[in-house]
Every structure is written in C-alpha cells, then in structure tokens.
C-alpha cells in the first residue's frame, strides 16, 4: 500500500496538471473568439471570389484556350495534397483527423496507380505523415513564428503551389483542412483547388452578358492565382478557429478528468489515513490490555 506521503504528492501533481489544463482552456477560449471572427470575416470574400470566377469562366467560349488552372492540364496522374494542420498538439483529434483524411485519400489514389505528393502546412501534419510518406513530402511550411495570420502568409503558400504547378510537378491539387462548425464540431474537409471546381450554373447569371476589361482569358489569368491564395487563406483561418475550438473542448475534458482523479485520490488518501489511525489505536489498546 502506498504511504500517505506518496498519496499526498500524487494529489498535488494532479492538481498542478489540472491548473495547467484549466489555463490552457481559458487561453484557447480567448483565442477562439478572435479566430472565429477572423474566419467569419473571410467567408464573404471567398464566396464572392467563387461567384466572380464562375461568371468569368462562362464568358470564355468552350472552344477558346483557357488557363490550365481553370480546366486542368488534361492529366490526372500526379496529385498534390496540401495538408494544413496546427503547429501544436494538445488539441484532441484535430491534427490526426486531418492527417487521416489526407492519408486515406493518398492510399486510395496510390491504389489507382497515381503519384501522390504532399505539401505540409504546419509541423504537426508533417510529423504525422513523414513516417508513411516521408519521401513524397515536397515541402513543409511552418507558421510557428506567425502571431497574427495575414493574407501574405497564405499568398506565399499559394505562390509556392502555383510555382510547382507551372513546373509541371502535379496536375491536380487538393487542400485539406478542418472546417469550423462549432466549438465541439470541426469537419475535416478536402477541397480541390486546381483545377477549380465551379459551382453549378445559376439561372440568373444567363440573363445578362458581362463586359470584360481586359479580355476574359487575361482576367482569369489574374484571378485564378489569386483565388488559390484566397482559398488557402480561408483554409488557414478556418483551421485556426477549429484548432482553438478543439483545444478548448479537449482541455475542458482534461480538466474534468483531473477533477475526477483528484476526488478518487482524496478519498483513497483519507481512507488510508483513517485506517492508520485505527491501526495505531488498536496497537495502543491491545498493548494496554496486555499489561
């Protein structure tokens, strides 16, 4: 049986852990509010961008040559998976569920005989994927030193993707991130960004014809690269909000579990203490009786 001192120190250590998880939960809650506002503020831009692109793409006649970013290169044998994860752990299943989605997709593609390459954004995703796909990871972007996520960070990632595309390194690009639904629900999502998946044609749009300035194909060559950065930016913001949400609920659970553990340990401690007192009393009494 553990001594009283052991039990005391065990309780103290669980209490210290509980304090840490409690603090982490509160920090995550504060950060979540900011990340959530940022993610929600970015949504209108990405949505409008989609509308503009689909309207412009309709302005390009089917027969005319269109930028490869829009229609694809005509091949689908090399895939690039851009996996966006967090830089830190201790946020429940957040990182592993994104990595799992990407891994499943990669395994499925490889079974079809396609080549798969990875671009990892965030250290955790790299850590999770390097064991199985180490040689296929072409690049890792770390955002560890970034305090406030800005458009320029997404832009530099977008530029890397376009550079690789123009060098013919891949023909289809899919973005993996976690969409923020609520604090307890984050949905790992795969989004194809090259070639662009256009939403279904809206009825309203066919009623009028746009004038373009400059020509639609030139316009698209400006718009499409920007769209990639915008989608990456949105993914990063959604991810940031999801990460904080996941961390908050994970830490809330941890705090609750620690409380439960403290309760059990304290009960055990008191029981042991009482047992020892009783034992001592019995010893004294039986000693006195023996005289």
């Amino acid at each position: 049986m553990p001594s009283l001192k052991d039990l005391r120190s065990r309780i103290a250590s669980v209490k210290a852990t509980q304090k840490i998880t409690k603090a982490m939960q509160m920090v995550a809650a504060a950060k979540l509010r900011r990340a959530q506002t940022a993610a929600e503020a970015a949504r209108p831009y990405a949505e409008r961008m989609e509308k503009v692109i689909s309207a412009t793409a309709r302005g390009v006649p089917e027969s005319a040559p269109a930028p490869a970013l829009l229609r694809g290169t005509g091949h689908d044998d090399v895939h690039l998976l851009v996996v966006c994860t967090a830089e830190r752990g201790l946020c429940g299943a957040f990182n592993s569920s994104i990595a799992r989605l990407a891994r499943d997709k990669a395994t499925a593609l490889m079974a079809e005989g396609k080549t798969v390459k990875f671009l990892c954004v965030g250290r955790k995703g790299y850590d999770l994927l390097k064991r199985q796909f180490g040689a296929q990871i072409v690049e890792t972007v770390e955002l560890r030193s970034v305090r406030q996520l800005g458009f320029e960070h997404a832009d530099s990632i977008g530029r890397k993707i376009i550079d690789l595309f123009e060098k013919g390194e891949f023909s289809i690009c899919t973005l993996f991130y976690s969409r923020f639904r609520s604090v307890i629900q984050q949905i790992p999502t795969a989004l194809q960004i090259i070639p662009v998946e256009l939403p279904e044609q809206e009825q309203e749009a066919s009623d009028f014809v746009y004038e373009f300035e400059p020509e639609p194909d030139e316009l698209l060559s400006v718009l499409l690269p920007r769209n990639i950065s915008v989608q990456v930016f949105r993914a990063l913001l959604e991810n940031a909000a999801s990460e904080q949400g996941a961390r908050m609920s994970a830490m809330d659970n941890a705090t609750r579990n620690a409380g439960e553990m403290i309760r059990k340990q304290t009960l055990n401690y008191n029981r042991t203490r009482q047992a020892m007192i009783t034992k001592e009393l019995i010893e004294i009494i039986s000693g006195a009786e023996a005289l």
Partner: protein
Amino acid sequence: MATFPFELVSPEKLAFSGEVEAVVVPGLEGEFTVLKDHAPLMAVLKPGVLEIDQSATQKKKLFVRGGFAQVSPSGLTILAEQAIALEELNAAQIEADLRSAEEDIAAAATDEARRIATEQRDHLQELRTALQI
C-alpha cells in the same frame, strides 16, 4: 439621386456594405464611375484610390490594391486584397515605413525574407504614387 447596393470585401473583412449613389473605380484600363443601372462589367483594378459617394454630403475615399470589380444588375462588388481608408494614412508614416522596408531588404538573410521586404516596399511605393494624384 438613385442609389444601388455596393460591397467592398477584403480577405480580412467586409470593408464596406451599403447603398451608394456613385463609386469611382480605378480600373486597369482607366478610371470609371459606376452609377445605378450600369452595364454588367468585370474589371481588374490597378492600385489606386476608390471614391464612394454615399450621398451628396457623405463621401469616402479608400486606397485599394489587388482589386477586382464586378458590376451586375444586383449591384457593385469589389474584391480587394487590401483596402485602407485614406484618413488612416499619412505621408510621414508612409515615408518612415518605406525607409524601414529598404533597411529590411538590405538586412534580409534569406531569399524569402528579401522577397517579402521587397514586396512591402513596392506596395508602399504604389501607395505613395496613388496618393499624389
């Protein structure tokens, strides 16, 4: 004067949304003014000053960069990578930022850092040219 709905969106936020009378847009091929019932148009913008007339007395000026305008029967939408209200800018601050960007370029250790600093400088120079118009 008749008004129409106008929205200015940047990746960080919805910078402006509301009914306006006229908007002067710095198009890549020249400035143009959008009034109510403008013909449907898609245009790339050059870095420059966007003028919003909400009413005869209420006017607003913003600097936009990396922008794109869509005029449809349902109104005008401008997507801009960056949108700053002119009153938030002042020449001395820009000059100071420009100098620090130059220093960053000189001090940059990696190609990536140099690229970012150069971009920063170019943006500031665009800003300066736009404001002197």
